């Protein structure tokens, strides 16, 4: 009998530290699976973010670096320039990529750095206790927007992917979600595309992944998937942006 589902070599056989229902474990696996399918494990260098996924290198079986909060794309830029033959990607959350690291994000994209970016959007700062993120929805309650995000006070959810899509150096932007098996399969295809683009030297690719954070959404795991489907994706529509 043919074995069609197995743990990819790029993923260590260890339990993760993530909360029940968290999307990181799924996203890690998708990245690992894609790396295996493309046969690039031994030349891949990943940049782990500051945030819940800081120890992604405890789960990924390939070279990795940490980066200071927000600076992943500066670190990745340099690694790729030094080793153009390697495959370099960053894995960043919304606070990392779209708040503290906006400058590094925009400029790496605008230089058209030949990198792949996996951008996890869960609308909150998870590791620090669920504060408001640049992507928090209007009305969404967090520990720093206790009445819900108010546009007059906090501004609007930042659509960084749409902003980046405007830049000529960016070759591919797609928004995907982990709220159902079908969407997760689409997410995997998009992540694969982002890596293939790099292999083909096409420039900057970014996949935004809508990912559940039941703990700081105050929801049960199943409920958090429904919330992405019914609420979050209205603000962040799925599909190819560029």
């Amino acid at each position, binding site marked *: 009998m043919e074995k069609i589902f197995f743990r990819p070599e790029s993923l260590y056989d260890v339990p993760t530290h993530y909360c029940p229902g968290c999307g990181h474990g799924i996203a890690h696996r998708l990245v690992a699976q894609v790396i295996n399918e493309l046969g690039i*494990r*031994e*030349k*891949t*260098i990943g940049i782990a973010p500051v945030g819940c996924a*800081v*120890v992604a*290198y405890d789960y*990924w*079986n*390939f*070279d*990795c*670096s*940490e*980066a*200071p909060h927000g*600076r992943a794309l*500066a*670190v*990745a*830029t*340099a*690694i790729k*320039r*030094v*080793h153009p033959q*390697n*495959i370099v990607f960053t894995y960043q959350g919304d606070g990392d990529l779209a708040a503290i690291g906006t*400058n*590094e994000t*925009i*400029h790496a994209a605008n230089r058209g750095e030949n990198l792949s970016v996996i951008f996890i959007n869960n609308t909150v700062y998870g590791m620090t206790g669920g504060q408001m993120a640049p992507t928090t929805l209007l009305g969404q309650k967090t520990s720093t927007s206790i009445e819900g995000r108010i546009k007059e006070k906090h501004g609007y959810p930042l659509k960084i992917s749409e902003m980046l899509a405007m830049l000529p150096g960016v070759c591919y932007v797609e928004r995907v979600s982990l709220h159902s098996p079908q969407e997760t399969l689409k997410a995997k295809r998009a992540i694969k595309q982002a890596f293939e683009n790099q292999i083909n030297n096409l420039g900057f690719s970014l996949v935004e992944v809508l990912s559940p954070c039941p703990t700081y959404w105050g929801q049960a795991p199943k409920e958090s998937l429904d919330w992405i489907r019914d609420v979050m994706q209205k603000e962040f529509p799925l599909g190819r942006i560029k």
Partner: protein
Amino acid sequence: MPKNKILVSGNEAIAQGALQAGCSFYAGYPITPQNEIIAYMAKHMEQAGGAFIQAESELAAINMVYGGSAAGARSMTSSSSPGVSLMQEGISYIAGSQLPAVIVNIMRGGPGLGNIAPTQSDYFQATRGGGHGDYHLIVLAPGSVQEAYDLTQTSFELADKYRIPVMILGDGILGQMMEPVQLSSKKIAANTIKNWALTGCLGRKPNITKSFYLREGALEEFNLKLQKSYELIRKKEERYEGLFLADAKVILVAYGTMARIAKSAIMQLRSQGKKVGLIRPITLWPFPQAPLNVKNKKLKYLVVEMSYGQMLEDVKLAVGGRNKIEFLGRSGGGVPSEEAMIGKIKKLL
């Protein structure tokens, strides 16, 4: 001029010294008075087979240096005081990840935007680590354009040897001043074997560049490892120049550009038969202890700085209360004059 002798500014000498030392990655952001370094790198780095990036900020520049170094390249950035303040986060991460890197600070007046005049007021920031956490940089203070060239090469060697960030601390005078430089014919040092570098895990276990130690006791263990390395550096790498120390009654202590003016004052006083000497620390961290650890209680020191007394604290620590120490300093663009030094010394003699 003899072969391989050129007339260059301190800034250009640093850039040339870096390329001679095999620096193959540079990222920087423009700021006066060090712009000749980034311009030189823009022109020559790619020809030399390396990578050059004009970063979007000093934050990005230092993190690119983090990445370049993690990838195994001899990596450098250069800036001036306000820019180096912005880099402190990255420098702390570089130290915490045990990455070799060279950071050039051609100091200008502060605090804040300050001015672009020469100063030495970033001594504390350079020698105390500057960013968060228990760490040090090796800090080298060239006193001439030739030394700027030579010490840049040394800085890459030390950075690789100890896996530590090294800072070259100069000021606007050194950066802008032109002097003849004897170019090194030394072969570009072959990069140390960096089996920790990120190159892809082909044929080995994955390498991780990190400074995060969450498990209980792990960070303390790591910090002790750093301290052990600092102890070794203290023991082996203190550097200074001593002048007329054998019979001096008053010893000036000054570094970098300031030591040049101090030398003129000393030569004048010597020609009048006054017993004056000079200690010029070349490493500011580790600060040279040996020349200041002497038994003669009658010996007096005059510390001269373009600051209001920063290196002074290290001199006091090294002297340990045994001797009288006087201080002469100006900052914000003021430079202590030869005459002012001579006046102070005559009162001490």
